[in-house]
Structure formats: C-alpha cells, structure tokens
C-alpha cells in the first residue's frame, strides 16, 4: 500500500497511509464541498458530472484504480526483487485520467495505438490484468508469450494495436486503422496516444496531416507530462501549448487538464463525435504528470507513491502534481454527488486490489517460455533456423 515520501510533506495530509484516504482528507480539510462546488472546482478546465451516466463515471473510477493499483503493485514487485523482474518498465501512474477519460468516450470496437508508457491505456481499453502481469514476468501465459515485456503489450482482439518501444509510429498506425474503418464503413474511431516527446517526430506530422487530408476518424492524444526522459518539454519544443500545432493543419485542437478525468472525458467525447459523425481528426493535448521516473525505479521506494530526489525535477513539483491526483478527485466528486458512498468506494478498492494481486499470482505461477520459442512467430506457422549453432 503506497504512502507518500516521508521526508517532508509540503501539503497537508501527505503522510496519511493510503493515497486515496490522503487525498480525500486533503480535500475535506480544504472545505466541506457541495456537489455543485465540486463540479466547478479546479483550475478552470474542470467540468462536472452533468450528463455523465453514473455507470460511466463509476467505470472511470474503477478503471483508474485498476491501472493505479496494478502499476503500484508491479512496482512493489520490482523493488522487492524476489521475483527477479527485469526489463523495461515505464510507469504511467499520475496519468490515468487521460486513459480513462478518453476510453470512456470510446466504443469497445474502437482502436487505440499506444506507446512505451501505455499500461493505463491498455487497462482502460479492457486489457486483461493477468495476461499483462504475466507479460511483465516474461511468462508464456503473458499477452505476448514473453516475447514483448512491458513495452509491447498488444491485444488486437480488443482494438489495442499495441504499445510500442519506438516513439512515433502510433500516429501512422491509428491513422491507418481509421482509414480501414472508413473503407469498411464501420464508424470506428482510432486514437493514438503519445507523449510530449513524440510530437518532435515526422510520423506525428504525417499521421495528423494525412488524417486531415483524408478526413479520418482519428484522434491524437498528446499526454504532455512535461518531460522527455529528463528533458523538460519546453526545451525541446518552441510551442508552449502543443495543441497549437493543429492550427497549422487546420484541424480541431485543444488542451485539457489531464489530471481531471471528467474534463478529459468531455473533450474526448467531442472529439469522438467529430470523428464518428463527421469523420474528422482532432488533436488533444492533455497536461499531466508522471509521478515516477521515466523508466525503471530511480527514486522510488516501497510503499511510497512517486519518485523523489531526481536531479531533473524538484520534489515540490512532484508533490504539487500528486495533490492534483485524479483518483481521489473523482472519488470526492462521486461521493459528493451520492453516486458512491465511502463504503462502496472502499469496496471497489478492495475488489481492484484483489484482482491485481491475483493477476500477479497468476504471473508468478505461470511457466517461462521454452528457450526455443523465440524461433517462432517470425512468419506465421514456421520457424527460423537456430543459426547460433553449427551443425
């Protein structure tokens, strides 16, 4: 169960045990809010629950929680070391609202193309936690049978065209998937998720440009978490608001508070309608933050949420963003609006934690792939030769 950095809470409540409890209390401590005020609160971007079916709002809550707990528990397993986990691990904790908000606006058969920081995208799109856990354990029962690991999880059957270890291709793939939907006349929508760093790339231009040209039902969601590895976004882009790029392509474009799932949902809904009804693309910039380091676990501690002491950002900055955490924010809203009781919320949390724990157990108990398996799947139904051996 993660806690905040003990070394010096700079905001009220950061030493509370659960981040959920913390943030709830922090909010309560600030003011006893009415449901109307909750709906209006925030930094101006925030919108409320009006017009959002309860079920969908609850789905967003559970979805963000599933992603959060799965990554937290996976982080704990990495840190604990006893499973000998290895490989890439890009944590999306802090950014869950972007995934849940967008996916809440999508249909099951819509497509997403994700990037290296895509666990939360996948979970929101219906990814199976057990198969994801097993993939991080490089087990045969994993989504990719141990071939891919964290960075390449894919579930074509759920419209998940995959995470990817290379920055940029998702914009082409999503535009292509949108093109395919148009050819088939299905009204499906395709969403590309990328970081602020992915906009530096010619494929970003190409994907969006061709979506504009061919009027494709494609949405690009740029999750601007302020950093490309250790490089602040402002240093690698002359634009302050990345969505401005859309102006040069004459497509719809806007920024949204990526720490507010309802705000993201509202923007995504408009974009999805534009895509589905008018077959037009949209560029969305979601301003968000990753609580952990770029990859791996520098500065991370067991039971503490967030990575502190990193050279390229201040702990105060990390704490300030954690104070905006979208999960307790939504819980607060749901409780204030009587969509959820505290007890029901705790129950959901318990269910999610159980599901996560079981998924990790499943992974732990699964078998490793055969060494020889790597010769398969180069082409369908055949194997390549084991050229490392002389026979």
């Amino acid at each position, binding site marked *: 169960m993660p806690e905040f950095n003990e070394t010096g809470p700079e905001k009220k409540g950061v030493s509370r045990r659960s981040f959920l409890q913390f943030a709830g209390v922090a909010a309560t401590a600030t003011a006893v809010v009415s449901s109307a005020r909750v709906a209006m609160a925030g930094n101006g971007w925030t919108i409320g629950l009006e017009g959002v079916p309860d079920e969908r709002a609850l789905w967003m809550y559970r979805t963000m929680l599933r992603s959060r707990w799965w990554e937290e528990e996976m982080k704990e397993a990495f840190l604990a070391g006893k499973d000998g986990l290895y490989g890439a691990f890009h944590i999306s904790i802090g950014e869950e609202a972007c995934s849940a908000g967008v996916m809440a606006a999508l249909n099951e058969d819509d*497509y997403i*193309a994700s990037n290296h920081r895509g666990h939360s995208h996948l979970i929101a799109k219906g990814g199976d936690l057990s198969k994801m856990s097993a993939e991080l354990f490089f087990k045969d029962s*994993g*989504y*990719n*049978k*141990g*071939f*891919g690991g964290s960075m*390449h999880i*894919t*579930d*074509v059957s759920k419209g998940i*065209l*995959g995470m*990817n270890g*290379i920055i940029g*291709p998702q914009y*082409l*793939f*999503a*535009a*292509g*998937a*949108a*093109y*395919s*939907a*148009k*050819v*088939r006349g299905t009204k499906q929508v*395709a969403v590309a998720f990328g970081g602020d760093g992915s906009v530096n790339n*010619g*494929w970003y231009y*190409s*994907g969006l*440009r*061709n979506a504009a*040209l*061919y009027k494709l039902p494609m949405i690009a969601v740029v999750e601007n978490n302020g950093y490309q590895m250790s490089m602040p976004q402002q240093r690698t882009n002359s634009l302050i608001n990345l969505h401005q790029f859309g102006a040069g392509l004459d497509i719809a474009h806007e920024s949204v508070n990526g720490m507010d799932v309802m705000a993201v949902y509202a923007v995504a809904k408009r974009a999805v309608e534009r895509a589905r009804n008018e077959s037009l693309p949209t560029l969305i910039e979601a301003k968000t933050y990753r609580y952990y380091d770029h990859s791996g676990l520098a500065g991370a501690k067991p039971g503490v949420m967030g990575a502190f002491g990193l050279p390229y950002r201040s702990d105060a900055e990390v704490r300030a963003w954690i104070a905006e955490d979208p999960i307790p924010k939504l819980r607060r809203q749901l409780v204030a609006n009587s969509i959820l009781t505290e007890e029901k919320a705790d129950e959901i949390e318990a269910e999610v934690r159980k599901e996560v724990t079981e998924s990790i157990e499943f992974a732990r108990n699964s078998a490793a792939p055969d060494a020889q398996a790597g010769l*398969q*799947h*180069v*082409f*369908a139904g055949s194997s*390549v030769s084991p050229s490392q051996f002389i026979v």
Partner: protein
Amino acid sequence: MVNKPSNFAMLEALQHGMRNDPHMTMLYEYQRPVAAGPLGNVIDLYKEFGDLRIPDWGPIDEEWHVGGAAGIAMTGVRAIARVPSMCVTRCFELVFNQVGKLRHMTGGQVNMPLVIWQDAAGRNPGMAGQHADAGQEALYASIPGIKVVVPSNPYDAKGLLAAALQENDPVIIFHYPAIDGNPTDVPDDNYVVPIGEAAIRQEGTDLTIVGYGPAAVEIKRALPGLEEAGISAEVIDPRTVKPMPIDPIIESVRKTNRLLVVDHGHETLGTAAEIIARVAIAVPGAKFARSTFPDAPPPGAREMIAWMTPDAPKIVEAAKHMVA
C-alpha cells in the same frame, strides 16, 4: 496467353485480389494503377475501385503509404503500399522496427497482410545518384519478418504478387522495369508463383549461374554467348530473396562445383554475398565468384554506368574465366 508488360500483369493480379476482397486497399503516390494491355485493353483500378480503396491523391510521403498501410493491415484489412523507386529506404525504419517485428514481439498476435510493391529503378543511364539504384532488396532480406520477392519476367511478376496477396506476413515485391526485357506469356487468369521457390531456367554441368530480377535478364541474354563458348551453364533464378530457396542452388553446385552469382546490387553485402556464403558453407571445395555493381552510387553518364553494370558480355567473360 500473350506477352504483357509486367506492370499490366501485376495490375491483373491486384484487380483479381481487389475484386475478391471488398476491403483490400492500396496506398500509393503517383504511379496511378492504370495500364494498357497488349490488346489495347485497359486496367484502371482507380476507376474500378474508387477514391477510398485506391486514393488517387497520394502525398509525397512514403512513410504514410507504408505506415498507414501497416495500420490498415493491423485491423485485418489487406493493404498494398506502392513505393516509388527513388526512395526505396524512406520507410526502412518502419519496415525494420515495426512491420517486420510486430508479429514476433507480440508473441504471434499481429497478422500483417501487407504487401509493399516497391518500384525499383535499375541501372539506367542519365538518372544518377538516387534514381538508378538496384539491389536494395538485400537490405530488406537482411532484416527479420519480411518476405522478399524479385520477379525477373512478367509471368513471375503477376504470380509472385498474387502469392503475396495471400500471405499473412508482410511481403515486399521489388519491381524492376528492366524485366520487361524478358517477355513472357502471361495467362489472363489468376495464378500463383509460390514464394520461396526457385526456377531452374536451364540445366547444365560446367557451372551454376544464379541471378534474379534485372541480373536474370542479363543472364538470359548471355545464354547464346555461353553456348557459343561451349559452356554448359545451369541457370537458376531464386525469385525469392527471403526466405532464400538455397537448396536447388546447393544441389546444382554439388554437381557443377562452380558458382557465379550475378547481381545488380552492390558488391558488399548484396544478395550475392548471402548466396555464396550459404553455398560455401554447404559445399566446401567449390569455386565461387560474383559479378556485381561496384560499391559506388550510380553515376549519371552512360559511359560510366554501363561499364559498371554486370551485363551479358561480362557474364560470358566471367563464366569463361571460371571454367578456364
């Protein structure tokens, strides 16, 4: 059955494919899929299948054509990306790190019914630099997950493309216009030339000559000269470069004990290197040679590029040298 230009023959295969699959889609740049056959009949895929499946307004953006087509293919819709000849590697990273890897790195999940129709230039005078290249099929063959075919005549061009359209793996077909110098009858009906099958063009005992694509055209042109020189050459056209059908070549060299590989690609790490390496490993004691374009870009002046290109007279000389 009449002689048909290879471009027309390939459009026949595409037309057949697109008629049978209502979603098959082709992205391309400016090589409008229209061609006239030998009897004046015209195939106009654009007219037949329309702006959505054959968008007649391709931007100059080969990464879109290949990357977008890969996205289409990932949704289960067969896609063809036609790439112009002067920028054979503009989308190499997409093919290397995405198209070729996606099935494997997802543990077999991703099908990639994608065909890249790669127009290739060939060693033409006057074009220079970027417009007279050949041999880049070796670059694609050297990376995992892509099947690579190179027809040497219109019959194979149609049949190999038809075969590619049935694959669930990405296939790149290199189309060199020079293969029209090797006219063949082409049936009107659809047929398949299986990927991975070599063609033994002539049997012989003195030496084995291997070449595909434009080199195969030159080898064919060299046949009278070889006969005149009293050389009994076994001529093999692998047709597929990856996976390489090496067995018939090995068998042949076991018999002739001499292997000459002709290639319009570069000397270093062109396909000839792989063929020789495989045979050298399997048939110790044989004699090997390759006649390839030098390790230089193609110069424009006719005098230079003609001298540098392996052609029929050079092949005859090389064979004489080998059997001497």
